[in-house]
């Protein structure tokens, strides 16, 4: 089996974009292709992440449409949909395709618009997001996605004593990181008091515990050794990718605080990379809500089970902490254009591993981990990247 590397990365600012999806995606795709030194004729396949275009923009069959817009018509194009884990799944399949030698160079992308620029306001978009919960046994209760993570986090608070203040500290940390990221949707700091004073969305989460609705695009160029040898981009090694699922609806999950799919995906990725949690230098993870970051750092083995809240409040996951988590600002501050989020995590890690992350650079980072979940953690993909040797 051949090795895989990321040889080029690009992304748009996350925020509000009043552009058609093909135009928005082109901005990220050309940046990634230029970074890789990849002209259109060396891209062998295009794997796209877009979760909701059919619902939000009446736009489907998007992979060949976007490929056509950026000069890639003719090659195999596939769209992946796994709720919020959408473009990580596209990335996983690209890595496997180049490892197998099926393709040498694959463009992976993600694009989504979720802000009112789509013409959809909060109730409509909340309903579209809720379509990732069970159609018969969850959606008709009025459950929302803040509510899904509200259920998981409320249980964690009951079992482990996690507090609203612990959760607020995570929002404060990610907002602070976001001030150092020019592409982040939120560029200003917040305080524990401001978080706790903001209105409840779904208990225990207040407005400032929640990621925003976002528009944006991201792209990475993945290659095997043969492909990379034709390109000029500074490569970062893909050391492992794990992918696991769990039972839906969430009431049937064995343990509501485990996010078991993240534990299973992390085990696979650590084993492939031949490392453990203590070897990771920088983490980008799926903090759609502050409580999701607590569950994720425990599932990834970065802290002991039950310690996610206190460890975060102690600053262990801060940019200058023991294990920096979400230096980009995370979904919370950077933004969360659903289908673009997974590939954007890879963009952030590549910049740290290249030493190009600017003010938010994690010093001497040589191993990075991305954790991207979909739905109620019914899907999680964990990817480990390393400085090329």
């Amino acid at each position, binding site marked *: 089996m051949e090795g895989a590397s990321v040889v080029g990365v690009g992304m748009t600012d996350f925020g509000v974009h009043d552009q058609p999806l093909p135009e928005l995606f082109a901005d990220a795709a050309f940046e990634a292709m230029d970074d890789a030194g990849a002209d259109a004729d060396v891209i062998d396949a295009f794997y796209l992440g877009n979760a909701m275009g059919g619902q939000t923009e009446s736009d489907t069959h998007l992979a060949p449409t976007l490929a056509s817009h950026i000069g890639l018509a003719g090659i195999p194009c596939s769209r992946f949909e796994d709720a919020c884990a959408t473009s990580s799944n596209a990335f996983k399949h690209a890595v496997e395709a180049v490892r197998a030698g099926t393709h040498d160079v694959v463009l992976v992308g993600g694009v989504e618009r979720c802000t009112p620029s789509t013409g959809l306001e909060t*109730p409509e978009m*909340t309903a579209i997001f809720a379509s990732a919960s069970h159609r018969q*046994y969850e959606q008709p209760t009025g459950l*929302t996605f*803040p509510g899904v993570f509200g259920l998981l986090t409320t*249980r964690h608070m009951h079992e482990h004593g996690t507090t609203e203040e612990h959760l607020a500290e995570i929002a404060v940390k990610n907002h602070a990181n976001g001030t150092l990221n020019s592409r982040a949707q939120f560029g200003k700091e917040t305080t524990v008091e401001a978080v706790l004073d903001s209105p409840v969305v779904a208990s*225990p989460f207040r407005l400032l515990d929640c990621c925003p609705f976002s528009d944006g695009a991201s792209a990475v160029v993945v290659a095997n050794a043969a492909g990379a040898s034709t390109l000029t981009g500074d490569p970062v090694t893909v050391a492992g990718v794990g992918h696991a699922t769990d039972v839906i609806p*969430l009431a049937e999950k064995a343990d509501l605080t485990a996010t078991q799919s993240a534990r299973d995906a992390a085990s696979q990725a650590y084993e492939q990379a031949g490392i453990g949690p203590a070897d990771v230098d920088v983490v980008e993870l799926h903090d759609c809500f502050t409580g999701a970051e607590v569950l994720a750092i425990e599932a990834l083995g970065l802290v002991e089970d039950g310690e996610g809240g206190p460890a975060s409040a102690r600053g262990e996951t801060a940019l200058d902490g023991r294990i920096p988590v979400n230096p980009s600002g995370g979904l919370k501050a950077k933004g969360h254009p659903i289908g673009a989020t997974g590939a954007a995590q890879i963009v952030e890690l590549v910049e740290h591993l290249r030493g190009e992350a600017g003010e938010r650079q994690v010093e001497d980072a040589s191993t990075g981990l991305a954790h991207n979940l979909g739905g109620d953690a019914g899907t999680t993909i964990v990817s480990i990247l390393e400085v090329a040797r």
Partner: protein
Amino acid sequence: MTVDERLTHARWTEALRDGRLLGQRCSECDTVTATPEAACPACGARGLETIDLPTSGIVHTATTIEVSPTEFDAGYRVAVIDLETDGGARVTARLEGEASIGDRVELTDVLEVRETVPVFS
């Protein structure tokens, strides 16, 4: 068990409207689920016995929704109810009243917005 005997969404809904909560017990591993599946989520076995579940349970977790989707009016609670069966059946439901984690609640009603779901209080 033949396909005709398998618990369906339609049959589960009809029973719920009559105040009964139907579930399934796996013939292989004894896992109990509170919403219909075609095979056991724990072991994959297709031999599932349809059973009557308790209509009383314990609040396992709950959230209060203050920003709702279209078709719903915010300011309601959704909970996961542990039905205290051997095999660990839980169901997601509307929760009325002030019950919190660990409190006992009863199936008292159904909510019908596009589909029928249980209401506990």
